[in-house]
């Protein structure tokens, strides 16, 4: 009798512990109705921890205006974001409004049917039409890109003014610019081994590639990385390195180190994008920064002047119970007053039309909205291995590999990925 009691108590203990574990997990992860049955709680999931304060303020304001809706914000780190958002969306719980990266990562979620169609939403009118394309598939608007980034070198306007230089409009001019900067003791183009290859390849191919979607056609086997235009692009990057226009040992420098060198005015350009301007400004408030892109062809053959990326793409989970409340929240974020607050607080340029910017860095970036820029070619690739092969090819030529050999190696990786 006593032994039976032990057995029963042990089973009870294990079952209780298991149930306690299940219960605590569920209460934090899921949204749902409150005890009064009227308040709906929607989950807003994204990766930008640095925007926590701005979003918290906006959420508070949203909840005041919409008493029946509560917003639970969950921030995952950007490195593990994709791995966490996938199962969250798959479960149908824990994410009503969610952010996603453009390109291959958006493509994976889209193929899994994670997005609700937003084509009929009125808030689409608040966006610059050409910037919405990143979230469109087969004519449907599945996500709305909220932020706008220019993926082209940032330059120190003060150094350019001191030396009487202006951003060049052809490749010959770009090489002359680098030479002048080098002769005057500046590192012409700062490079970081972790970021620059993936960024700089975009403006380098924008005018070299035969069509605007050439990188996207690589994964279909229609275009090869061994084609003349890609080998030429790699050769041009190699020329910059061989001529000493990048700092010594560029691949060993990391993002933070390269940004510090630009802030310390050791270098004149940094092969990153507009997103780095606020960081550099923080380190050196007096620095005047601008954006430029290397034009790799003669002036009359240049189709594009720069590269843009519409990112932080907001979507609604197709499995959400509260799609209407989720749409209301996105609509609230797109209102000019709220978007302007977000832009000011976070230093981000937005894809929305009526946003007021007051910081010099944002005003400088905003000038590019009117220019002819191409959506980041790298993000048109939907097969991640193809994207990686291209970035690795850039690293390879900087390490001294012959451009043709690097292109051949990259194409072999592509062949393996798309077979």
């Amino acid at each position: 009798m006593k032994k039976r009691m032990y057995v029963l108590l042990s089973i009870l203990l294990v079952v209780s512990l298991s149930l306690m574990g299940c219960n605590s997990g569920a209460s934090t992860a899921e949204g749902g109705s409150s005890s009064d049955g009227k308040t709906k709680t929607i989950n807003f999931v994204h990766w930008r921890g640095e925007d926590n304060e701005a979003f918290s303020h906006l959420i508070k304001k949203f909840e005041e205006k919409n008493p029946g809706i509560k917003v639970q914000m969950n921030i995952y780190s950007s490195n593990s974001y994709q791995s966490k958002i996938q199962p969250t969306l798959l479960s149908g719980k824990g994410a009503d409004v969610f952010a996603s990266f453009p390109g291959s990562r958006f493509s994976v979620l889209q193929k899994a049917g994670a997005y609700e169609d937003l084509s009929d939403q009125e808030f689409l009118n608040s966006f610059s039409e050409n910037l919405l394309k990143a979230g469109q598939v087969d004519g449907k608007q599945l996500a709305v890109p909220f932020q706008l980034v220019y993926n082209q070198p940032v330059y120190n306007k003060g150094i350019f003014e001191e030396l009487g230089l202006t951003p060049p409009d052809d490749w010959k001019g770009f090489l002359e610019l680098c030479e002048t900067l080098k002769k005057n003791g500046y590192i012409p183009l700062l490079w970081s081994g972790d970021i620059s290859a993936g960024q700089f390849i975009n403006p380098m191919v924008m005018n070299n590639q035969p069509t605007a979607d050439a990188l996207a056609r690589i994964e279909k086997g229609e275009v090869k990385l061994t084609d003349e235009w890609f080998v030429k692009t790699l050769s041009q990057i190699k020329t910059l390195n061989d001529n000493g226009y990048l700092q010594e040992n560029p691949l060993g420098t990391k993002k933070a180190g390269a940004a510090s060198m630009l802030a310390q005015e050791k270098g004149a350009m940094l092969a990153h994008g507009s997103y780095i301007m606020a960081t550099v400004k923080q380190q050196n408030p007096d620095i005047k920064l601008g954006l430029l892109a290397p034009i790799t062809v003669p002036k009359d053959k240049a189709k594009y002047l720069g590269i843009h990326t519409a990112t932080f793409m907001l979507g609604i989970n197709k499995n959400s119970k509260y799609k209407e409340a989720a749409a209301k929240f996105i609509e609230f974020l797109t209102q000019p007053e709220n978007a302007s607050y977000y832009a000011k607080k976070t230093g981000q340029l937005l894809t929305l039309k009526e946003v007021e910017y007051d910081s010099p860095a944002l005003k400088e970036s905003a000038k590019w909205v009117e220019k002819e820029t191409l959506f980041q070619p790298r993000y048109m690739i939907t097969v991640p291995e193809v994207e990686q092969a291209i970035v690795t090819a850039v690293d390879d030529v900087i390490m001294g590999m012959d451009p043709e050999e690097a292109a051949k190696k990259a194409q072999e990786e592509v062949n393996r990925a798309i077979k």
Partner: protein
Amino acid sequence: MQLNNSAGTVKGKSSPFYSSKIRRKKLKVNWALFMFVLPGFLVYSVFFAGPTIAALVLSFTDWNGIAAELNFIGFSNYIELFTNDPIFYQSLTNNLKFTVSVLAFQTVLSLVFAIMLVKNTKANVFYRSIFFFPTVVASVSIAFTWNFMYDPNIGVINNTLSAIGLENLTQSWLGNPDIAIYSIAFIQFWMHTGQMLIIFVAGLHSIPKELYEAASIEGAGKWHTFRYVTWPLLAPSATIVVAYTTIQSFKAFDLIIATTNGGPSYATEILSLLLYHEAFNNFRFGYSSAISVIFMIIIAVITIVQFRILKSNDVKY
């Protein structure tokens, strides 16, 4: 019929049949005790055995991490891995370079430091704490700090070398594909030497002093005392240090992802990083599972071999 008795046909008290029956009876009587191991068994099943079996099953599929159904593709992932993936072999080579260099330096130097700091004086305790300190710091924080130190232009290592006239030794520590993996191995070794030192110190303290006295009376010098007394009796500690260092180095992940993320051009890609990249960058969870199965087999084989070699050196006294 003695034979029949031993075969258990006769119910004599000394027969194996009798004793095995008694044992079975005892187990039945104490059945409730199994409930005490149940929580541990459940934790092991859910967090270890379950994922291992899941990885094995997934390795035969082309699952992308999202699809609701599993599509079985037989041994295709394994065939691709061994016949058509040069990055797998590069990662394996990098793993060996990394593990061997960390193992050699970490084991030898932690033993040397342990012998130097074995006495429990105030200074030694202080130094042991200093050596141990990097172990308790998050490896990602350490990686960021070393990223700055290794920076070829503004990093303290190259600047110090230049300042003392050794400019020709300056390097792109994380950017040069020939040395990047060793640069990270050095960080790993720097982080964990203090930890291994503590294990060796504990091992040294467990050796009876009488053995040293006997060796001294026999006229043994320092080297012979170490060779024939200290080292054989340190075998249990060395087994732990070597096995732990090997597994830890093979599984090194956070440090590498935070320093180079496998670059430049896969020069620091190791198996743990490769399977992560295949799963979470390339969305090839099936392929990634195949890598993890191979990875698991490699670690298991190395660990078993190490234990056998080191166990054979074990001395009982």
